[in-house]
């Protein structure tokens, strides 16, 4: 085979691998807010982190490639934010939450206020920056709802 063609094929292979990796990275996680029916449902208080304004409720499974990574990211985030607590459950431990919020993949993380309202749902392995950003948004939303209540 011609050397130039060989180099073109090798560069093409690296480009293909990079494209696959970038597409995978862009689609592996998704952030959403609760739908209309989900807004009416509250997470029971027994599943929430005691004494915290915000609970990072992680749903994991034994055969889950990225649950360990997500555990590390959420654990670090809750250490930085004193008002946030991280709890982790196996899918079999919280069937009513799985059903109510239609959780179909692991890891999935619910950002839940102390009153049990789900503010954001992070599906898949979510980058640390996105987690931190949505924790701040969740705190702002909790504050806004508190202000509305006072008014």
């Amino acid at each position: 085979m011609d050397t130039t063609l060989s180099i073109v094929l090798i560069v093409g292979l690296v480009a293909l691998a990079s494209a696959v990796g970038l597409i995978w990275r862009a689609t592996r996680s998704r952030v959403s807010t609760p739908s209309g029916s989900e807004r009416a449902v509250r997470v029971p208080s027994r599943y929430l982190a005691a004494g915290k304004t915000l609970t990072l409720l992680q749903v994991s499974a034994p055969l889950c490639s990225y649950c360990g990574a997500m555990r590390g990211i959420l654990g670090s985030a809750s250490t930085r934010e004193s008002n946030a607590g991280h709890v982790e459950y196996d899918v079999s431990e919280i069937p009513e939450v799985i059903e109510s919020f239609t959780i179909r993949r692991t890891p999935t993380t619910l950002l839940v206020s102390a009153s049990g309202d789900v503010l954001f749902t992070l599906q898949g392995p979510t980058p640390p920056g996105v987690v931190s950003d949505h924790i701040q948004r969740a705190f702002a939303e909790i504050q806004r709802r508190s202000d509305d209540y006072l008014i």
Partner: protein
Amino acid sequence: MTTSSNHPGQIDPRGPRFGAGITSVLILIVLVFGLPVADRPAFDGAWWLFVAITALFAWGTLLGPAKHPYGVLFRALIRPRLSAPTYFEDDAPPRFAQLVGLIVSAVGITLHVLAVPYGLVIAAAVAFLAAFLNAVFGLCLGCELYNALLRLRTHRATPQA
């Protein structure tokens, strides 16, 4: 319920990624030297390097990623320079990934021995794709396959109502 904590007895997930990085570079060398002469299979340097890579896949399959030479290298040279891992992972999925790498490279070696043109470089390209995705993006295709197969087995073993 569990709270955030580490799981002792498992491996640092950065170890297999480091190993995948070395594997990617070695396979790239195989492709650079093997592709121009791939239409005439010969037992040249690229061939012997690919044999060595295959032997390393066999080592990882039999003894696990922790006892793999790249794992030892990671612990001796890289790990002391990094912060503590935020989590650990079970070594079974990366070990299965080594098995997948072994099967792919063994197919390439067999085709090359049978004088099949491009057999070795096609197998090398497939192995490179998987190793590169693991090293650069943290996507371990072999681990994903392992988890998918286990889920399938668990699903089949669960009695249907």
